[in-house]
């Protein structure tokens, strides 16, 4: 921080004064040193306590949702949803078979039953 080599004493008529000022550097009192260190420790304590007290993002999310019990409920609901989703696919297959019969059965479906009447009338009228 200090470099006194830039201005050799012989080239600067004021150097005697500057040199004297450097040699007679005012010293801080022990009381000032103690106050500065006390400030340092107070700021340090506040800063470290602040870091401990400030919850992280996950902790803030957990608290927003209602804490661990709510997280447990959400997890249970998620697992149940998954189980229902997987179980429902199998159940739907069984239900389809019960209602529609086994694959390979043939069914006759009359999509336009009123047409039978029109055809019968045409035939009877010749």
């Amino acid at each position, binding site marked *: 921080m200090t470099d006194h080599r830039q201005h050799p004493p012989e080239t600067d008529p004021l150097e005697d004064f500057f040199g004297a000022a450097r040699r007679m550097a*005012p010293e801080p009192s022990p009381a000032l040193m103690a106050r500065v260190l006390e400030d340092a420790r107070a700021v340090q304590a506040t800063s470290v306590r602040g870091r401990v007290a400030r919850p992280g993002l996950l902790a803030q999310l957990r608290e927003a949702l209602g804490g661990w019990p709510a997280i447990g409920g959400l997890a249970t609901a998620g697992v149940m949803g998954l189980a229902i989703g997987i179980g429902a696919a199998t159940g739907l297959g069984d239900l389809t078979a019960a209602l529609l019969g086994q694959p390979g059965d043939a069914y006759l479906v009359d999509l336009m039953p009123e047409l039978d009447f029109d055809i019968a009338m045409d035939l009877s009228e010749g």
Partner: protein
Amino acid sequence: MPFDAQSDVDDHILLRRFAAGDDEAARVLTLRLTPRVFAHAMRLLGDRAEAEDVAQEAMLRLWRIAPDWRAGEAKVSTWLYRVTANLATDRLRKRRGVALDSVPEPEDGAPSAAEGLQDAARAAALQAALAALPERQRQAVVLRHIEGLGNPEIAGIMDISAEAVESLIARGKRALSAALSGRRAELGYHDD
């Protein structure tokens, strides 16, 4: 951890350790930086009580900024000189018009040896002459010739160009030479 273990560590590394809660870093930084900050404040203000207040406030600002300190942007010492000078300038503006005679003499280091007494007398005379300079000239001269900084660093501290620093120093030294030339005999100079 003994004091020596961190005494060679750079300021910005100590500051990072301080921010992480390292008590030893707090102690080393206090011992290393407070004397410089106080001495600089004392040279700018010429008053011990005010210089102590300024030094404490400058160091407090350093402690507070420590968690956000970004290494490489500025030297800790440069930042401290700038804060100290700004705080001192605020004080000086509040007490405009102070007479040169009212500037307190330096109290420190009352030596018993004649050489020490001469040093004390010269330092006191310089302090009085510095007090009569405009603030910016005083700051530039002190940073260059007593703190020993180079022009680029002084320019950074004072937020001006290196050329402006040179100009302030030149004008300041002319005024100091004029003020001190009349006191050479009483300060131990014997013109042959």
